[in-house]
């Protein structure tokens, strides 16, 4: 167990260091998410009344598509530089690699989500600083990262990998999007646990199930 966490943390630290030096992923994903939001402001008339209706949708579309962009990078780097073999050959269990990569992806997603909060607050006047919205954002990002990390490892080995990841990821992540949008609607309207409890429960169950399943199946993806 200690070896497992030491391995996972080593992979995590490596990914964080890489990102801290290049800042590639965070900057590109954040700008991309911003552009998604701008496109929405043209697609819908951004008056306060429409915003109350489409606000949660805008938030989660931008987080989801930004998330895909970030996920694409989780393994494409390793594949292109040929470091994936090094990672597989390292004296780590495969699920420790998964856990490290998962934590790296999750951190990246959370940073982008945080960077986007002021955008929603200033441009759309959405009450995104509510406690329950932040809980939902954290749980949903965990779900995205859990399935996304696994599928990213599959997608890099397929032809046309940039397309393959969204095709794999989006349908599988749909329960998260449904729960996140519905829960956000309640949270932004100032409703509490009684209204959004079911969505939070669904997100927790999803995260738990898919972190376990992904850890278990990850070794079958990596073996060559």
């Amino acid at each position, binding site marked *: 167990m200690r070896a497992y966490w030491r391995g996972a943390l080593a992979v995590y630290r490596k990914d964080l260091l890489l990102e801290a030096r290049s800042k590639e992923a965070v900057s590109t994903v954040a700008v991309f998410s911003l552009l998604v939001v701008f496109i929405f402001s043209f697609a819908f008339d951004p008056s306060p009344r429409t915003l109350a209706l489409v606000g949660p949708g805008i938030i989660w579309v931008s987080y989801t598509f930004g998330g895909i962009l970030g996920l694409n990078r989780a393994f494409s780097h390793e594949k292109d530089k040929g470091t994936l073999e090094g990672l597989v050959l390292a004296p780590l269990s495969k699920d420790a690699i998964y856990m490290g990569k998962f934590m790296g992806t999750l951190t990246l997603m959370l940073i982008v989500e945080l960077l986007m909060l002021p955008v929603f607050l200033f441009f759309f006047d959405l009450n995104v600083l509510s406690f329950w919205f932040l809980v939902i954002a954290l749980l949903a990002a965990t779900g995205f990262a859990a399935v996304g990390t696994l599928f990213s490892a599959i997608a890099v080995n397929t032809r046309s990998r940039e397309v393959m990841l969204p095709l*794999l990821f989006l349908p599988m992540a749909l329960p998260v999007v449904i729960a996140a949008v519905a829960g956000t609607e309640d949270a932004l309207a100032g409703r509490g646990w009684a209204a959004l409890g079911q969505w939070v429960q669904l997100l927790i169950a999803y995260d738990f199930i898919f972190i376990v399943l992904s850890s278990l199946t990850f070794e*079958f*993806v990596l073996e060559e």
Partner: protein
Amino acid sequence: MASAQQVRQRSFTGVAGLGLLVIVAILLLVDLALIFLWAPTELVLGEVQRIFYLHVPSALVGFMAFAVVAVGSVGYFWKRTAKWDRLAHSAVEVGVMFFTVALISGAIWAKPVWGTWWTWDPQLTTTFVLWVVYLVYLMVRAYVPSKDQAARYSAVIGIMGFPLVLLVYRAAELWAGIHPGTVVGPGAESDALDKDISLVFTFSLATFTLLFVYLLWQRVLVHKAEETVEELRASIK
């Protein structure tokens, strides 16, 4: 070279397959007669309700197929034999076909009853997405370079998809929508159906299940034949 025993076994599967095909064909005809001639006309919905005997069994058999996919996928990682991979792959193909029937028959039923072909009801939406998941399963198989990778990746998807199958199965109960909840099958309320309707439905479900078994079996045989051809081709080169 095929031994005498293999030849005998092959001719046996051929005869058994043909026999099952005849049985399924007869049952489907009887099923049609029961649905359109014998089953009582539903009081509220009228004649259009008869699509129920097609719609619900194909959806249930689709769920059954995806459960078989999960079993085949776990079996593949456990035993690492092509047999399990063939089972999962074939079950996806047949399951997607049954889900397509369920979605289309549902749309035909929805038009007169709900006044629209499609609505973004939780049950409909999630069913549609599950259909896409298994479509992507087939795409991944087509887009990877090697057979071994196709088997491994698709087995991972087959396992990851299973929690979604359970979720979609109960979607109408979890999120109250316009689509009615489960009236038959595991987790359904008892006595939700009239006796005659329930009788015809049970017959229909049994027929569809047998059709599923037949199609699954034939797909497995086809995949096996394909692999044999590939092996032979490779041995000639």
